[in-house]
């Protein structure tokens, strides 16, 4: 393997993972995505329309944001089962703030801070109380969901005003033409803000993982925690940062989702953590730690988003969708293992 995988020098090797196995995984995931898109395009003519493409972007942005945070945690060798609940709690906190008269932007920031605080707590439980990530974040999953339901009395908070809906429903470069009959005609629906947000977050996260010391420490911690510690990596601090970022991104995703609905729903986001984990794993992240990347997770998120959307367009029930996505996750990991065993 060492002989055939002499990586190319230069700009490409900087962008692509140096490990050829990871690169191969990325290509195969991308190919899967392309096949899905082509298949759905044949099945339903509306699938490739501009509007539906933008819908997919919108739908994927939430999974994508959660997936980015999840990827960082998974690379450290952990897992974050709480992101779905933290998403709901953050969105609800923002909604309550807005309802209480706080302007939208500070309210959303507070919501994100709430998510970050949940993540920090996760990190604290994992590093200082030495509780396995699975159990620690399972606890937070219940705590955050319970808090969101308790705070709102399990009732959605609606009528949050137009400004609250801008993040989820607004779009850049939206072109609208007034027709003579007085009705507006949308010429180009624009790039949705959530999609732009996702791209920005993905680029920043990727930069952090590849070009900053903290990113290297995240990989090292997941690869061999004891070695990282002996090499002078502050392992606990690295994990705290990863969990906090995951919580904060769950907060961002919560705000995007609630903003899109213009309603704060405390019961939103159930099982979203599984979509996020699936996105990361399909994208090549290893639950053993040390392996994974943002570009892979983005592809994984789009595979899930396209699959959901395409099956919806084809009129497949959401129950069947769950079955299909379940098989996709198992299949993706199985193929990955086959390749690594070779």
């Amino acid at each position, binding site marked *: *393997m*060492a002989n055939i*995988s*002499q*990586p190319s020098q230069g700009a490409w*090797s*900087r962008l692509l993972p*140096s*490990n050829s196995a990871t690169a191969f995984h990325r290509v195969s995931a991308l190919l899967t995505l392309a096949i899905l898109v082509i298949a759905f395009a044949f099945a339903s003519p509306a699938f490739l329309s501009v509007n539906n493409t933008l819908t997919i972007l919108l739908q994927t942005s939430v999974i994508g944001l959660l997936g980015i945070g999840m990827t960082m945690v998974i690379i450290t060798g952990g897992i974050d089962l709480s992101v779905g609940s933290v998403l709901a709690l953050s969105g609800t906190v923002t909604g309550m703030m807005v309802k209480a008269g706080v302007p939208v932007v500070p309210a959303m920031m507070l919501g994100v801070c709430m998510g970050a605080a949940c993540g920090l707590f996760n990190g604290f439980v994992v590093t200082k109380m030495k509780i396995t990530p699975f159990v620690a974040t399972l606890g937070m999953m219940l705590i955050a969901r319970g808090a969101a339901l308790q705070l709102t009395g399990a009732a959605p908070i609606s009528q949050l005003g137009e400004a609250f809906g801008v993040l989820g429903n607004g779009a850049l470069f939206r072109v609208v033409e007034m027709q003579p009959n007085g009705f507006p005609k949308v010429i180009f629906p624009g790039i949705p803000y959530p999609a732009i947000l996702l791209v920005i977050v993905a680029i920043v996260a990727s930069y952090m993982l*590849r*070009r*900053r*010391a903290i*990113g*290297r*420490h995240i*990989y*090292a911690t*997941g*690869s*061999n925690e*004891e*070695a*990282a*510690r*002996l*090499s*002078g*990596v502050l392992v606990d601090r690295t994990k705290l940062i990863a969990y906090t970022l995951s919580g904060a991104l769950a907060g961002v995703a919560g705000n995007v989702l609630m903003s899109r609905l213009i309603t704060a729903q405390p019961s939103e986001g159930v099982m979203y953590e599984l979509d996020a984990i699936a996105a990361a794993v399909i994208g090549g992240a290893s639950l053993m730690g*040390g*392996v994974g990347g943002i570009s892979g997770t983005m592809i994984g998120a789009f595979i899930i988003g396209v699959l959901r959307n395409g099956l919806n367009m084809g009129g497949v029930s959401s129950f069947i969708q769950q079955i299909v996505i379940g098989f996709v996750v198992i299949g993706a990991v199985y193929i990955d293992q086959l390749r690594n065993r070779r």
Partner: protein
Amino acid sequence: MSQTQPAPGAPAPLVEMRGIEKHFGGVVAVNGVSLDLMPGEVVGVLGHNGAGKSCLMRILSGAMAPSHGEIRIGGEVVEMGSPQDARAHGVETIYQTLALADHLDAPANLFLGRELKTRFGNLDDKRMLAEARKVLATLNPNFTNLKDPVSSLSGGQRQVIAIARAIYFDVKILIMDEPTAALGPSETAMVADLIRKLRAQGIGIFLVSHDMHDVFDLCDRVVVMNKGKLVGAHPIDEVHKDDILSLIIKGELPTDWRPRNLEAAQ
């Protein structure tokens, strides 16, 4: 171990460990050990598994906090709270497990925890690769696949990375825990050459080893641990292999023991 002050004019010890103890609950892993290391001295640390030698070395490398005792480096009392502290005092360790992150490549492992950065705080991968290439080439000229994850490298290559990581930085005290266990004959010879070279530069080395041949070949002095205690400390020309074995196994010298160098003089 002699506790007397060094004669005037003699170099001061690099390391002085005084009354080091380590307890795990009721188990005493290291029991009141005092040990010195002079500049340019190679001290072999021997003892069978569980004798406490790894524990003692881990305390010096900052990986483990002692229950009692003090460590002086260059005459100053130091706190070895973490591996970072130890490195700041010039103590580098080559662990038996090598302590490499398998998914990272050689330069990333070499600089792990001490990454070279550009002006903007980004990782300077180019410079790290160039520096790694330089230092690895001095140890093993055939080392070219620097960008592969270290999991795909041979045992010898991995060992070379672990050694390079210790000597690249400003090392004054080097702890080598079984440095030749994973190596073939030519690489073992390379490590022996390296030890001699480092000794000539005035670096103090603790060599933890099971290999009697290595110990007699390279060390100036041997210390033997048994059940957490230091049971013997002798200049290498004072003892035979059998004496060392007796210390390791029984914790005492043979009853009829006499210093080898004096024997020869008679």
